[in-house]
């Protein structure tokens, strides 16, 4: 019994090995960047400073995560909510428009959306969150719709036959069955948003994009490398977390 439990725990730990590894690398890189000064000196020989010092890397990472996290959370709530609403009887009228909007909207380049958000909302962190939220909605809405519409009608009928109410049907049958597709949509949304948030450094949000932008402006390759390294590690960490979650959702 205990052996079996520990076996499960070990297997669980192994499943999370990749995310832990990337996450550890990310944290290590944030904390230990100063110790790599010699290495960056090789790349950038003529600059006085080779370690980005305007802000702490951990702070930048925290702000990046905050912006992407808040936007993603809101996008999941609104996106899944909207997709569920338009597949119910009361909201069915809106289904064609919402489906078309989600599909056309994904043709819009994220940079263009970010750039168009600034004239309307102004500079700073909040406009970026709003832009990321709006853009991040599209893959989530689209995948939730695909997931809900892909459910075999027979399954629904069977659940109704068992006497389930609409709420029970949604919570216990429809959402769990659609979960893998919804999760794939959230993964796409978050991946795009991590990249777009970095570009947000040009419109006044201070995050991991900052060292890159300031490095490009001042011609300091070392800054660019530090920012690029950290954003790359962040993207890989988050993506590996989703990669672990996905099969778990499909089997469970």
């Amino acid at each position: 019994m205990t052996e079996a439990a520990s076996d499960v725990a070990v297997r669980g730990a192994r499943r999370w090995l990749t995310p832990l590894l990337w996450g550890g690398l990310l944290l290590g890189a944030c904390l230990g960047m100063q110790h790599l000064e010699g290495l960056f000196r090789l790349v950038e020989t003529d600059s006085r400073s080779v370690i980005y010092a305007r802000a702490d890397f951990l702070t930048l990472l925290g702000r990046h995560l905050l912006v992407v996290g808040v936007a993603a959370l809101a996008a999941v709530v609104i996106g899944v909510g909207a997709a569920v609403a338009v597949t119910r009887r009361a909201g069915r009228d809106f289904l064609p428009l919402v489906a078309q909007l989600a599909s056309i909207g994904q043709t819009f380049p994220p940079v263009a959306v970010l750039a168009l958000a600034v004239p309307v909302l102004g500079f700073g962190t909040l406009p970026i969150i709003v832009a990321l939220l709006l853009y991040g909605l599209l893959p989530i809405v689209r995948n939730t719709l695909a997931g809900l519409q892909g459910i075999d009608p027979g399954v629904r009928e069977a659940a109704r036959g068992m006497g389930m109410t609409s709420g029970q049907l949604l919570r216990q049958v429809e959402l769990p069955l659609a979960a893998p597709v919804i999760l794939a949509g959230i993964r796409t949304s978050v991946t795009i948003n991590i990249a777009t948030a970095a570009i947000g450094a040009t419109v006044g949000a201070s995050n991991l994009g900052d060292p890159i932008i300031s490095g490009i402006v001042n011609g300091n390759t070392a800054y660019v490398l530090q920012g690029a390294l950290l954003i790359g590690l962040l993207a890989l960490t988050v993506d590996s977390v989703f990669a672990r979650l996905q099969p778990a959702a499909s089997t469970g």
Partner: protein
Amino acid sequence: MSVGGIKAIVSRDASRPNVVLVSLLLATLAGWLGLDAVSVAPNRIVPGQGHAAWDVAGLPGLAISLLPMLAVLWLAWRPSRERLRLALALVVVMLAALPAWLALAAARLVDADLPQARMGVGAGAWVALFLLLLAMIELRTRLSLSRPLGWSLLLAPLVSLVAWLTFGLEPLALRQEFQGRSAGFIAAIGEHLLLVGAAVGISLVLGVCLALTMRRWERVRTLGFAVLNFLQTIPSLALFGLLLAPLAWLSAHVGWLAALGVSGIGWAPALLALVGYSLLPMVRNTYVALDEVDPGVIDAARGMGMSRAQVFRQVRLPLALPVILEGVRITTVQAIGLTAVAALIGAGGLGTFIFQGLGQAAMDLVLLGALPILVMALVADALLGALTDLLRPGGAT
């Protein structure tokens, strides 16, 4: 999976109001009445002063502008087919009239003695434009008009926009930004298209070769998809940054590369990164397309005495073509957006205007960069989508 994926368009009786259209029109009305239609500034530096819709043409003018909206509302209340057709016509007329309304605002509100004076499009007009376009999509779906017909409906508003931009909208800030750099604008569009075209072309050739290799060797497939998935995860700005150092080193140490114009910034890292991002959708679609051709069809072709090469060229490839083209479509749309980011590392293109504009807090310059990118992405998506439909077996060929 695209627009055709909406399975259940509910058949509805005409006695019930079209709720979607009613809500869209009510929102349009609210935006039109409550938000600034235009903003006027004496020069580029001073922030503009907002003007509501009734400032433009007084209360009578406002009343006239409200008439078509109310008419569509009334038509949507009992949506028979004829009434919806009429509503669609009214929406198209409103879209076509929007530039004329802006020209009227420019004539009445902008001081003709100030050559520097400029007019910006206000939130009210943008909201109206956006919601009316949504109303058009909704009506197109309800009337189940074909895609080409839907696109051709945009022709009248576009002609009107171009005509008014040429003859009556001199003070429009967007137009003034364009006039200041018309040569640069054309050049930027050229650079943008060239980078996108080169990236898509290279990745198409590489992608097909890679997909063919993957079909032959299992090992290559696993490794190839792992590497390409990894690349796709890295954010664009980071990839551009990571390419900067090695390319700078190469151009400093390899003479002929430097002579070609390769350096840490500019087109070289941009093109490399673009090809890297484009490969995944291209390879995935090509691989899946070639793999999913019905084995029965291949058997039949072999049975007819076709050689291996003939089977590939005359059966497998034509059948796979629509899915491969789908890959080209995804890649092209993605590359158009990524090229905008490449402006940050000096690759030129329309992104230059976006980042210049953001730097100078000149929002109309940002629009001058962002709007054409948006249009380009939509047009590329529509054209390649239409081409895919055409090549699909049983399509219009």
